[in-house]
């Protein structure tokens, strides 16, 4: 390469040609800028779909399709020794956990495909082998915290209770007993080996603030999907309603 070949990118041009070129370049620039501004205004005046501007909601759904098709249940969340877990586990939301739960009356309601509802007491759930999980819990707000949870992998619960047929559907929906908080999960995230129905935190039964008697811990999702105090579980091929997805957040919320 010659030393100054950049400065050989020259041409001899008449004043009129230069003026014309400059004029059209600036016109193009002005039109492109105006198009950009108009596009921005257009976008911001689009109707809202579940709390997000429609084109952005569509993009989130496209992202979701890409992410579901590339999802692998073999990719696990990083785990830590129990000693790394925090003692003061952050409470970020009380929606759906305000009613006191009478453990003798509480049952996990599982709606089956045939229309029947199976009921499980906490003792029924505790009969399955207990697993521990110490991982970095991630909130959609941006903070994260290493927390220690114990319970039964949802996949084990499904297998042990003959819900395999239900698990062929696309989504799982969960609700608190008062139905004030509800989430929808794609089945592959629900069946991820680290997704658990938890009844202990830091080796102790859950407190009411953390979702007593049973809550979902799904490390492949943001905290918003980790429903506290499960009342009902159901299966569907349509996206179950999701509290935060109705308020502008991404439905998938996957990590």
């Amino acid at each position, binding site marked *: 390469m010659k030393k100054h070949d950049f400065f050989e990118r020259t041409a001899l041009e008449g004043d009129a040609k230069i003026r014309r070129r400059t004029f059209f370049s600036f016109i193009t*620039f002005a039109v492109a800028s105006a198009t950009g501004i108009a596009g921005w205004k257009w976008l911001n005046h689009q109707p809202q779909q579940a709390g997000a501007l429609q084109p952005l909601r569509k993009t989130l759904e496209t992202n979701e399709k890409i992410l579901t098709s590339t999802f692998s249940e073999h990719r696990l969340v*990083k785990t830590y020794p129990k000693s790394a877990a925090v003692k003061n586990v952050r409470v970020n939301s009380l929606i759906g956990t305000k009613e006191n739960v009478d453990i003798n009356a509480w049952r996990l309601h599982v709606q089956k495909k045939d229309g029947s509802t199976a009921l499980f007491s906490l003792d029924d759930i505790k009969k399955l082998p207990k697993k521990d999980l110490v991982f970095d819990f991630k909130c959609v707000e941006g903070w*994260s915290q290493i927390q220690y949870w114990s319970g039964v992998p949802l996949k084990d619960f499904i297998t042990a209770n003959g819900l395999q047929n239900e698990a062929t559907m696309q989504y799982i929906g969960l609700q608190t007993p008062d139905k004030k908080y509800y989430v929808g999960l794609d089945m592959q995230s629900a069946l991820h080996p680290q997704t658990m129905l938890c009844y202990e935190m830091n080796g102790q039964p859950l407190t009411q603030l953390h979702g007593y008697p049973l809550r979902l811990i799904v490390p492949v999702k943001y905290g918003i999907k980790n429903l506290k105090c499960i009342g009902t579980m159901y299966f569907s091929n349509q996206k179950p309603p999701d509290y935060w997805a109705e308020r502008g957040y991404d439905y998938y919320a996957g990590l």
Partner: protein
Amino acid sequence: MKTVLKKHPLAIRWFHWINFPVLAVMIWSGLLIYWAYDPYKINIAGKEYFHFFPKSFYNTLHIPYRLAEGMSFHFAFAWLFIINGLLYVSYTIFSGEWRYLLPGKHSFKEAGQVLLHDLHIRKYHPPQDKYNAAQRIAYTAIIVMGIGSVITGFAIYKPVQLNWLTALCGGYEAARLEHFILTIGYVLFFLIHIAQVIKTGWHNFQAMITGIEIIPNNTYPNTAIQNSPDEKA
């Protein structure tokens, strides 16, 4: 007849002007996200000097309580940012424009001389091609930063599915901090860039729109910046 220098190819002008508003939207929507958890501050010896960001800053820009909105914009415009960036990098590679952009062996030494010149400490600056040494470093660094933002961005976005990437960034929290620092870097780049463009003047600026720069007296720009005989290039 005048001699015109074909300075900026059309493609580069498009990539440049598309990137400007897209990056602006990314930074703004990033702020909406950052607000929801804004732990970064400058602490020296236990004393807090600056908190990112003060309440007045947030309120002036209407940042508070818009996390969901910020995420919806961020994860849509990220596509435009990535695609435009990929097209720009591919173009510079295939067109050969990279030759004027990548720093060379002497760029780091020369960049110091350019800096002294720009600060009016040194009268002459080293001979340059399309860009001087400081520009080569800056315009290459901004691309490396862009790649860094995409990598750290994905590390925060999918820390389980892309756990290797998150590990590469030093973990989830580290990736978020890096993503933030890179953003501050863009803002600093922008401020210096604007100052330099204003300083260099209209002829240089309009070339980013028209692509051409008229060469006065039909002499090449770099011959107008002849080094004095006692300075070795």
